[in-house]
């Protein structure tokens, strides 16, 4: 009886393959099934691609962000998008692999969008390292993308950004409605130095595009303001034990520990382990990467005494966002996330641009280049987060930050900071 034995082994391997496949990130979920099966009707649907991490450790912030974009598309579709000539839909993809945002998965998702001729614009990604992998692809295909939250400087300005525009160096397809890190990092340094009065900082970052970028800006800005940087350390991927690192930090007696990175790359665990290393009473400061709900869950009671910024205004504090928040809570039966309003705004800008492009094309399917043209020209666009526009690099012309503090296990808004553009 050799056969059953072999087939059992084959079955085990096949099962492993299936389970692995379950975890992969390229499952397309369309919010409505209207366009399937009828090739003739395919030209009648226009899609907005949404690429965000919506599973794993990033899900607590990724899903509310995705919801923002979905809401904008659903509203537009219901309210007679482009005079009812086209159906508007989303194509939702997940760029998290094994529970974490992944540049390769993001790039794969963008390729899927590019291959789908009904996708005229995309919202996303969430993370800066994912954006680095995606920008060369959208640049090549001329597909416009607006990111709700990727804050790394190198995506829009300087030589780094130029290097990403490989196929068409003079064309920019990447825009963002959030504040970039040179502004966020500087603001964080000012908060630490002026508002909170810290003199000595110990800096830890996760060595990713976003985390290291933000930490470097904070490092330079804090020194410039007159502060002392006692040390600047980088952690490694999948690190769980930060005790040795924090023992080293504790021996230098910092006023504050600054973390550049996200909760999923260690931001929560570092805060949790600070207590064991004798830094339990030392405040913790970070950027928007630790502004998700996961942070309090991972850090537990130690989360208290942490400060973080969000590279977006606190929507709950804005009169312009009232209608958006009401619609969001009615639709999703949950509270808005820190980047929901940004994603909603990003999708809105794209929808408006697509409508203009349809007009230009005489009611026919517009080209991606037309859509890009109108997105790039966005100025004083009314949105829940205020008037939004883009400069030549694709950065927002109205950078705003929100400073939060964790007290009693919950985040409380301390102030909304409007920066110079």
């Amino acid at each position, binding site marked *: 009886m050799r056969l059953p034995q072999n087939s059992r082994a084959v079955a085990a391997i096949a099962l492993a393959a299936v389970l692995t496949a379950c975890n992969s990130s390229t499952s397309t979920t369309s919010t409505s099934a209207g366009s399937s099966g009828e090739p003739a009707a395919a030209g009648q649907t226009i899609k907005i691609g949404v690429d965000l991490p919506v599973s794993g450790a990033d*899900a607590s912030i990724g899903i509310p962000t995705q919801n923002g974009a979905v809401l904008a598309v659903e509203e537009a579709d219901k309210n007679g998008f482009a005079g009812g000539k086209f159906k508007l839909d989303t194509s939702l993809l997940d760029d998290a692999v*094994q*529970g974490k945002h992944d540049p390769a998965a993001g790039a794969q998702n963008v390729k899927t969008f590019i291959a789908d001729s009904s996708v005229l614009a995309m919202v996303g990604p969430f993370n800066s390292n994912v954006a680095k992998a995606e920008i060369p692809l959208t640049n090549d295909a001329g597909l416009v993308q607006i990111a709700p939250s990727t804050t790394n400087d190198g995506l829009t300005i300087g030589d780094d950004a130029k290097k990403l525009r490989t196929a068409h160096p003079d064309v920019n397809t990447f825009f963002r409605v959030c504040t970039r890190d040179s502004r966020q990092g500087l603001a964080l340094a000012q908060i630490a130095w002026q508002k909170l009065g810290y003199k000595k900082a110990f800096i830890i970052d996760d060595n990713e595009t976003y985390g290291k970028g933000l930490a470097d800006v904070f490092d330079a800005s804090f020194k410039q303001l007159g502060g002392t940087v006692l040390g600047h350390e980088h952690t490694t991927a999948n*690190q769980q034990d930060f005790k*040795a690192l924090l*023992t080293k930090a504790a021996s230098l007696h910092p006023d504050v520990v600054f973390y550049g990175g996200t909760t999923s790359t260690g931001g929560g665990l570092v805060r949790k382990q600070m207590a064991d290393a004798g830094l339990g009473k030392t405040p913790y400061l970070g950027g928007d990467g630790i502004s998700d709900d996961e942070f309090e869950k991972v850090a537990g009671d130690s989360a208290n005494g942490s400060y973080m910024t969000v590279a977006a205004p606190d929507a709950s504090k804005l009169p312009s966002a009232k209608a958006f928040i009401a619609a969001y809570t009615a639709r999703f039966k949950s509270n808005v996330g820190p980047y929901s309003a940004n994603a909603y705004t990003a999708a809105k800008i794209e929808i408006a641009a697509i409508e203009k492009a349809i007009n230009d094309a005489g009611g026919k399917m517009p080209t991606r280049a037309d859509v890009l043209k109108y997105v790039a020209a966005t100025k004083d666009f009314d949105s829940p987060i205020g008037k939004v526009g883009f400069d030549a690099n694709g950065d927002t012309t109205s950078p705003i930050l929100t400073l939060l503090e964790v007290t009693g296990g919950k985040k409380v808004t301390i102030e909304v900071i409007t920066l110079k553009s």
Partner: protein
Amino acid sequence: MTLFLQQVINGLSLGGIYALIALGYTMVYGIIELINFAHGDVYTLGTFFSLAILALLGVTGIVSGPMLIVVVVVTILGAMLLCGLTGVVIERLAYRRLRNAPKLAPLITAVGMSFILENLMQYWKGPSPVAFPQVIPNPAFAIGAVTIEAKQMMVILLAIVLMIVLQTFVRHSRLGKAMRATAQDKDAAQLMGIDINTTIALTFLIGSALAGAAGFVSGVYYGSTWFLNGFAAGLKAFTAAVLGGIGNIAGAMLGGFLIGLIEALTTQFISDQWANVVVFSVLVLVLIFRPTGLLGESLPNKV
């Protein structure tokens, strides 16, 4: 100097966890020459089993007095038993049929087992980090200027005690003798009347039970875990087993403590991001000069 000693304690605690996992790698390799990639995931499973047992006992915070001993003993034994059984089931389902197959087949099966366990755990507890209750009161004891926490002592002591128990068992018990015989020559052992299926199952039981103990300890020590935790820890523990001499029990322990120490001291005196570089450089150097690892012997004297 104080800082140096403090980092030595940090390193030994981290190394204790590596050592407990490394024991399982080294035992399985010693007896059937299989790198059991699923072992790191059995370790994570140990943390999850401990969580489930604590939830059954209704424990959510620090326990004190005699109840503490009951809770810790029940949880740790429960996690060890459940992990041990998992190991036996894995061996029975996935590896036994492939025992005489080309070496690559069980290796790939082990990788597949690892994926299966990871995904089952993700299904069970979700993909986000899970908090582990602080069961043990954690006073810090001062020795001079150096402090050692209760949970650090627990990790280090448990690793040493379990290693000694295991070493004694393998050296001096009848079953241990059977294990050594099976490791040397399966066919000859069988001819001498040793039931090698039982013996190999026993090896998986013990190795996986130790991973279960490590799982509980790591839950208490870090206060959290997530379904992929075993991947990185398993890799380090496997490195520890190779560094110490794979197949050698004392070597696994030595390798585990050494890697923990190297990581902590590199973090203190060089930089955190160089810790892995230094660990693996040391591994390469050791293997160049002692290809069988620090305590490994080229004699077929495994387990």
